């Protein structure tokens, strides 16, 4: 493939949205209230829509007949390059919200930079996505505040979720091989530069929510290299079942 770095770069971005979208989609019919159920599935739908734009572009770059569906549904676990944060399970609603919040703050900052990409298609997709993601971020940060500054129990659960998920945040700012090449070419976002502002924004919001910013300096990594937590396999089994059982279905 001529543009292998670009292809891998796009998949890295899109896989985050695909896997997180699948996680949010699991709330369909299972949300704690009707409104939150609808909100989570709306977020899921937005993310899947964004994924389609990325994968359609990736399929065009690959240029070997593979389609958006093949890319989404027919890869093996190690070929998914999403961050570990995205695949963490919906342990309880605080975890769902915490995961979403920790990703949304990153996602917004990332898309703001991707809009400046010298690659027109990526810049246009980012421009479209950022409007949707700003709604996601409003929703998730709003709920972090409501739960954090709610009852003793909701505060404790929200704090627990943030503490547990914290270990997956540092990976958001790790550069892959494809990242480095794309940054050099003016196409990609230098994620290392987003880190300081990210932790600043997150800490401020946590403080507002009467939650403590975790102090742990020990972080998990591996998702960007395809080394995932045990949760991804089960998620993929769910995601891929229909396509593998009935090949060539379209989404």
């Amino acid at each position, binding site marked *: 493939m001529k543009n292998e770095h670009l292809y891998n770069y796009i998949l890295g971005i899109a896989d985050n949205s695909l896997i997180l979208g699948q996680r949010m989609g699991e709330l369909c019919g299972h949300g704690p209230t009707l409104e939150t159920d609808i909100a989570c599935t709306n977020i899921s739908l937005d993310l899947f829509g964004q994924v*389609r734009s990325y994968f359609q572009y990736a399929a065009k770059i690959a240029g070997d007949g593979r389609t958006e569906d093949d890319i989404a549904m027919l890869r093996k676990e190690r070929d998914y390059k999403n961050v570990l944060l995205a695949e963490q399970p919906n342990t309880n609603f605080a975890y769902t919200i915490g995961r979403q919040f920790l990703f949304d703050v990153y996602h917004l900052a990332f898309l703001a930079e991707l809009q400046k990409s010298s690659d027109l298609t990526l810049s246009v997709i980012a421009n*479209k996505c950022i409007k*949707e993601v700003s709604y996601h971020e409003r929703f998730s940060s709003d709920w972090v505040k409501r739960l954090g500054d709610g009852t003793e129990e909701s505060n404790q659960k929200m704090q627990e979720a943030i503490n547990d998920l914290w270990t997956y945040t540092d990976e958001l700012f790790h550069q892959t091989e494809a990242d480095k090449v794309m940054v050099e070419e003016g196409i990609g976002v230098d994620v290392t530069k987003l880190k300081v502002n990210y932790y600043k924004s997150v800490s401020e919001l946590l403080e507002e929510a009467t939650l403590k910013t975790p102090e742990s300096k020990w972080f998990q990594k591996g998702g960007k290299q395809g080394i995932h937590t045990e949760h991804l396999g089960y998620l993929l089994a769910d995601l891929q079942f229909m396509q593998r059982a009935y090949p060539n279905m379209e989404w």
Partner: protein
Amino acid sequence: MTNTEQNIEEVLIPILAKVSDPEIPVLSIMDMGVVRSAVIVNDIVKIEITPTYSGCPAMDVIGDDMKKALQDAGYKSEVNLILHPAWTTDWITPKGRQALEDYGIAAPLDAEADKSVLLEGKRLVVCTNCGSQNTRLVSQFGSTACKAQFQCDDCQEPFDYFKCLK
């Protein structure tokens, strides 16, 4: 062609105007502003549409419905989805806004007002049932990606608000 202009051949307008958003049947796709261009090249109608929200499942249906309407009028057609310039609620025509209101969906406010109702709980959205402004946000996400849920504190009617996208 500037960002907001559409390039649509006159003869195609009445055909396309008959196609509506499957989720908001009163709203013609022409009034929604999703058709960016429709031209006839070598007897084939080439259309460009822009999605409202990325994941909007209505877009596939709209594309198929447009092809069907054009086929009924004797045209072959190709529909392409374009992402640039990105769709904005500013492209909904005054007629389209009225159709939304009549259907029970409050039309989008301007970006500033939209922010203050969705974020700060300001009461600015006018109830589509009784016209009161004493309305409150129930959820930022509604029955489809483009809408938020509101309720009127005067007549108690729940209703959808079409979120501003800009």
